[in-house]
């Protein structure tokens, strides 16, 4: 299938960069997508929103530094994580990898929970001052006087024919006709035939409410004046007025209904006065008429209740005052409140609730399913169909004010909030502890100190051990903390204190930054005073710098955000280390010479551009069009927060060869009480407790379901450590530029560690929130590599393979006959000869030596022996005999046969399947058939094994994934029987 580009075999998403350039424009990408396909449709949605996000990205400077397709890929990736689209996520990573440029790999987002529900955009011109539903979309009026449309796919289009003088205060539309009003009677209309439209109304006070039914128009002014225009009327007809601003107008053919701020609903049906008046019971905070202009919903100031005119009981209530009301075309009513919620429903039914993180203002319906809200220049579309799963605690609006990485537990981070809550997150962005601690005031900084944390807060400096109550070390307003030579260093107002040393120094203004390395402590005050303390004593200097970055090797790094310089101070010498091109609101060291910064409009990685320049210029090497307020970075990872949104990134530098290796090496080794697992090319191993691995071995060998469940849970926790410790990054690297590329994990266990590590079901490890790697799409298989002691037999040139099926005489192994028949049927087309025409009853070692390309051995096995005809034969003898067959693939259907499998590979067999623990020979034949036939067809044995394992598990063996193991010769590509031969 050619759909505008090379198609990845696994995901089905087009990958036009494969074999070509990654500089692909959006039209090409969209043209290659099939709207009827779910994955394609998801990608199309993400692409369109990503395009909008890139368009909204205001930093032209960053835009010039980075190719458009990289920014687009970054935005797609971020959205895919937020919206939980794993295929799109992988696709975006592959595209970014193909670009060959560094990028921020969004790993997780706290918004993933409700990401699909919200669609955000930033308005490029002006802030939103009026919002109303229109023709399944919404009309947006801005402070600059422009009127635009918002479509549910996120498209914003300005209507050039409508320009109000001054800010748009109100807008309405029906059937292609749109009207808008502004201050001082400013008015604009479009859609009427030339000469048939309304004239400009009298320029009096601001037009604050307007309605049209597509023919007539009614407008209400701040002064309480009302005017009506109907086709055929020469001008505007004044209606009776009240000395109060108009809140809402309903236009129902010849009848006009109005709600005034002073709490009156009145009906005009022609004539000089009101046909009816109704007291609503107080000043009206918000009101809206339904589409026919008959029903009025309203809220009275001071009462957070949504009411319907003429109905005694409120429809529903908010936690705080109501900021807006709106109706959908078909009669759904929605309200917005300062409690940070939107509520929507048919009057008389319970509303659905959407948490929106803050004040939603006055919302508008776009069709029946979507609500649009605006805050300043940010628009957000909320999908009511997805509101049902909303978390009522999510909108608690406790803004994140500080984040920190946990250097002792890589991947974990700690977050502090505006109200003083401290919360630890794991590497997947999930709560690591369910009981957050509090320090009672805004958290300013968090720093690791010994076994716990130091916390700077408005209520003082605190020490916190997760799981325990924080202990206050110092009262007063603490802006910064650090750990220096094992001592806590605290910045309280204009003092810096080391309590354990009894050292206290006062500076001229508030201390805003502390940093230290093993030798030097640096302190920066708001007035630019820089204090330095080391072995030789304490010195003070004055700077124009206002941000303390780090101390490294005795050098103090500071930032002058006015001059845009990063300076290095070492032994009295000041050198400009970096000239920044964009002013960050926060900048932190990432690793080496790289920094990570957050801006209102984006997040960027910065590194020196040319070392010989003076000062060296800096270059943005990766940027994400998503702004943030606080940031933590280290060891190639970044965590940012904006409001309640917390996001984790890896900084990825793709290899020059972007195609991806398709393999990741895992090298576990015993290191004291831990197993140090080296993952791929990462320098730092992941340390897994040996005790946990031993426990996993025991639990995974149990037969009870609850014990199996415990095993899976433990495998998940260990897997989390492995994935967050770098396996996730290495998997991306191995996939390279092809999102559909399967990955093979090559497990190498040293000979001296076999006793402790060989029985560990490594195959069961997985990230807790994801599937077993085998079942991922594309799959991640695992093979156990063994170094051969003798050369592997050459691939025979014979056109037909020979397959030998051996069995013990025990009747319990009779199912092999059935398996044999199945195998006979399934292998008909793969040019294999089944020797003997029936499973051979092996009486002794002599029967095992018959030359064959594939051997199946069905026999009872123990870790060291194989039983044949009632005799226990040592593994070495059995292995030697089987090796003599010259087979390239051997499948051992016997309990605890993994040691034998390992031995066979050492003796030169290319690939061997063994069983880690007990296996039921009545059910395992599915796996045996599949791995055999697929391998014989030329499928690499690891992929064949993956397919086989899936079939095996799907046949009703949920706990079986960690039982069959695949051993492969070191250096093997897995192609045991290459398809070409």
């Amino acid at each position, binding site marked *: 299938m050619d759909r505008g580009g090379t198609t990845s075999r696994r995901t089905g998403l087009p990958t036009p960069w494969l074999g070509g350039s990654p500089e692909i424009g959006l039209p090409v990408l969209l043209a290659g997508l099939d709207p009827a396909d779910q994955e394609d449709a998801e990608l199309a949605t993400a692409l369109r929103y990503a395009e909008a996000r890139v368009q909204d990205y205001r930093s032209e400077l960053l835009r010039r530094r980075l190719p458009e397709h990289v920014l687009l890929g970054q935005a797609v990736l971020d959205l895919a994580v937020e919206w939980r689209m794993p295929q799109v996520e992988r696709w975006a990573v592959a595209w970014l990898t193909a670009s060959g440029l560094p990028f921020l790999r969004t790993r997780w987002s706290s918004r993933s929970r409700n990401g699909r529900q919200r669609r955000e955009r930033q308005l490029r011109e002006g802030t939103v001052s009026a919002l109303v539903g229109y023709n399944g979309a919404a009309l947006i009026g801005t402070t600059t006087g422009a009127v635009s449309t918002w479509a549910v796919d996120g498209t914003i289009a300005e209507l050039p024919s409508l320009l109000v003088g*001054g*800010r748009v*205060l109100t807008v309405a539309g029906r059937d292609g006709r749109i009207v808008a009003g502004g*201050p*001082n009677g400013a008015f604009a209309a479009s859609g009427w035939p030339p000469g048939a439209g309304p004239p400009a109304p009298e*320029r009096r*006070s*601001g037009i*604050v409410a307007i309605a049209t039914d597509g023919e007539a128009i009614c407008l209400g002014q*701040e*002064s309480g004046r009302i005017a009506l225009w109907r086709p055929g009327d020469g001008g505007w007809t004044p209606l009776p007025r009240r*000395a*109060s*601003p108009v809140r809402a107008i309903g236009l129902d053919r010849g009848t006009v209904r109005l709600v005034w*701020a002073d709490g009156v609903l009145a009906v005009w049906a022609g004539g000089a006065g009101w046909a009816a008046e109704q007291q609503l019971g*107080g*000043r009206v*905070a918000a009101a809206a008429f339904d589409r026919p202009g008959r029903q009025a919903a309203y809220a009275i*100031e*001071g*009462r*957070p209740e949504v009411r319907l005119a003429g109905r005694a009981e409120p429809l529903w209530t908010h*936690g*705080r*005052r109501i900021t807006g009301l709106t109706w959908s075309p078909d009669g759904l009513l929605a309200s917005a409140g*300062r409690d940070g919620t939107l509520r929507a429903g048919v009057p008389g039914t319970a509303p659905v609730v959407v948490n929106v993180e*803050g*004040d939603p*203002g006055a919302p508008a319906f776009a069709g029946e399913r979507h609500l649009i809200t605006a805050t300043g220049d940010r628009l957000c579309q909320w999908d009511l169909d997805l509101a049902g799963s909303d978390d009522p605690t999510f909108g608690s*609006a406790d*803004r994140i*004010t500080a984040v920190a990485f946990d250097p002792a537990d890589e991947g974990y981070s700690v977050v502090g909030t*505006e*109200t003083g809550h401290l919360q630890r997150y794991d590497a997947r962005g999930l709560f690591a502890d369910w009981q957050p601690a509090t320090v*009672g*005031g*805004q958290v*300013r900084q968090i720093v690791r100190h010994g076994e716990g944390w130091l916390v700077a807060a*408005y*209520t*003082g400096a605190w020490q916190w051990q997760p799981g325990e109550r924080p202990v206050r070390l110092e*009262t*007063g*307003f603490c*802006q910064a903390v650090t750990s220096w030579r094992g001592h806590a260093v605290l910045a*309280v*107002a*204009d003092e810096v204190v080391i309590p354990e040393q009894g050292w206290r120094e006062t500076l001229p*203004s*508030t201390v*805003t930054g502390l940093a230290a390395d093993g030798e030097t402590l640096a302190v920066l005050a*708001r*007035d630019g005073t820089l204090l330095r303390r080391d072995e030789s004593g304490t010195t003070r200097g004055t700077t124009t710098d*206002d941000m303390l970055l780090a101390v490294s090797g005795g050098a103090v790094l500071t930032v002058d*955000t*006015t001059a845009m310089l990063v300076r290095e101070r070492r032994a009295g010498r000041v050198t400009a280390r970096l000239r920044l091109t964009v002013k960050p*609101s*926060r900048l932190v060291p990432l690793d080496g010479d790289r920094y990570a910064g957050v801006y*209102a409009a984006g997040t960027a990685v910065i590194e020196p551009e040319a070392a010989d320049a003076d000062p060296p210029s800096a270059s943005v090497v990766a940027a994400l069009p998503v702004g943030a*307020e606080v940031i933590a970075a280290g060891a190639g990872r970044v965590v940012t927060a904006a409001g309640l949104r917390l996001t984790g990134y890896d900084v990825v530098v793709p290899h020059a060869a972007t195609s991806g290796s398709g393999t990741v090496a895992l090298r576990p080794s015993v290191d004291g009480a831990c197993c140090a697992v080296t993952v791929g090319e990462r320098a730092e191993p992941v340390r897994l407790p040996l005790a946990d691995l031993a426990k996993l071995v025991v639990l995974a060998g149990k037969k009870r379901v609850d014990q199996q469940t415990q095993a899976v849970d433990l495998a998940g926790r260990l897997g989390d450590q492995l994935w967050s410790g770098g396996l996730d990054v290495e998997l991306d690297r191995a996939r390279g530029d092809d999102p559909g590329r399967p990955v093979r994990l090559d497990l190498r266990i040293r000979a001296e560690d076999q006793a402790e590590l060989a029985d560990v079901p490594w195959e069961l490890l997985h990230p807790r929130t994801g599937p077993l790697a085998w079942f991922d799409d594309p799959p991640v298989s695992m093979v156990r590599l063994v170094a051969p002691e003798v050369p592997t037999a050459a691939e025979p040139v014979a056109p037909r393979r020979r397959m030998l099926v051996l069995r013990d005489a025990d009747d319990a192994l009779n199912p092999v006959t059935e398996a044999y028949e199945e195998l006979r049927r399934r292998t008909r087309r793969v040019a294999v000869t089944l020797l003997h025409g029936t499973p051979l009853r092996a009486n002794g070692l002599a029967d095992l030596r018959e030359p064959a390309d594939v051997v199946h051995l069905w026999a009872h096995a123990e870790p060291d022996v194989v039983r044949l005809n009632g005799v226990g034969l040592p593994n070495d003898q059995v292995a030697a005999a089987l090796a003599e067959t010259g087979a390239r693939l051997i499948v051992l259907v016997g309990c605890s046969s993994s040691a034998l499998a390992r031995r066979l590979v050492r003796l030169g067999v290319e690939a061997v399947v063994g069983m880690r623990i007990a296996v039921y020979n009545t059910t395992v034949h599915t796996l045996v058939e599949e791995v055999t036939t697929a391998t014989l067809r030329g499928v690499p044995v690891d992929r064949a094994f993956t397919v086989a394992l899936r079939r095996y598990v799907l046949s009703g063996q949920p706990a079986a994934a960690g039982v069959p193991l695949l051993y492969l010769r070191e250096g093997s590509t897995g192609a045991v029987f290459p398809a070409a031969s």
Partner: protein
Amino acid sequence: MPDRLVFHESFDSTRATAATTRDDPNLAQGQIEAVISLLLGRSLAVNNTYALDSRTFLELADVMLTVRNRVIGEQKEEATRERLGASMPFVLFRWGQPNFLAACVDQFRRHDHEARNYFRMSAWEDINEDVAARTAIADALERVLTREHYDEPFPATLATDHPLLARQYETVLRLDAYFKNPDFDRTARAPKIALKTYVKKLVGLDDLALGDLADEKRCPRDLAVQVRDAVREGLRRGLDPNFVRGWAHDAVNAQGTDRDEVTLPELVREFVDTAYNGVLADSAHAEFEYMSSVPRLDGRDELKYMNALALGVIRTTRDPAATGREAVAERITTRMSGLLSAGSVLPGIPAESLDRILTEYWGLLADPDRSRSWAQSIDLLHEELGRGAVDVPAFRDAWRGHIAQLARDLPRVVAANDGELAVTMSNGTTEFVQTQQLGEIERAALDNALAAGEHLDDLRDVAEGLDPDA
């Protein structure tokens, strides 16, 4: 803690008179705005005229001094009592008089309508025309001044008919005692910019420039034009060239008060009053100014617009460089703006009496832990503010941090939500809420408010260096 003096337009003595009812928002406005300033660590700068004749200030001072003395008396530690005694909720700025009482005596005695220095009394409006009563009070205050003893009673002949004035008299004496602390009693300076400079600035704007300014301040252009033309017309007809503000008030008084709609003279008065208070703030050495419109209960917004226009004129007069869209956009992010609204606008916040609010405030000051963090947070807030628009995120961060902490320290008084500080106050019958935030106020919020105001904090350095005759 350094002096951080703030001048409030809402203390204007012409706003609330002796005849003002207790539930009038004019009274609440000045008091609740003052609370906000105190929570931001600022001391209220009052000139001797407002200290004597602003009913809003006198009522605030009455409660403030009562609560202050009570909380000080409750403290067991001498050091705490001393610390509280040294804290400075307000500071007097005298003009041409040696002390507060001498200034009061002088103003009571300036009762001759025909004299150039005639002083029309507002808080003492009941006796404004009663020369004997004014003289009796002046005599009583003079005796206090001479004997340096506060046992001189309010004239017995007035006490029965004027209980409110008797209470105000007591407050004046207590204020005088408070102002005995030399730190709290200072000499005013000649303003650097006279009222005429602001008025000239307005009438000198052509339609284009005035339109731009009106748009920036979100004041309808036609209102701005009407007011400018009215002032031009007044000048053409020979208005007082010294531009004292009496003429603007006289025009309003001449039309009577029984009107539903805001009239042009009222708009002119709003403009002139705001500019005049800008002059007084300058004279009082105030580092900060909070200028807010006269509150209206009927939901009409013209006075808010005119207040905003006047602030625009003050800004462009003091800092001509601060014009143009980019400069405005940059600066506006660090501006603090405020709204006075009916308490019902924020129903979730408990409304407390002024006594209760100030008790909580003094309680915060008395608590060594909380007051320390509070003061240190204020230091940072002002350090960041002093950096202007250099580091907007840092200032915003300091602001949000400070108000979040206020809400935690004073949960009965303060609410903080999404960068907005809110204080609600009840005068027994009516509740009011004052909100403060950074940057522009949303139109919908403005429409729901009784009054709007803006801090001129970012202009203080500019004003310092300005040539007054420029």
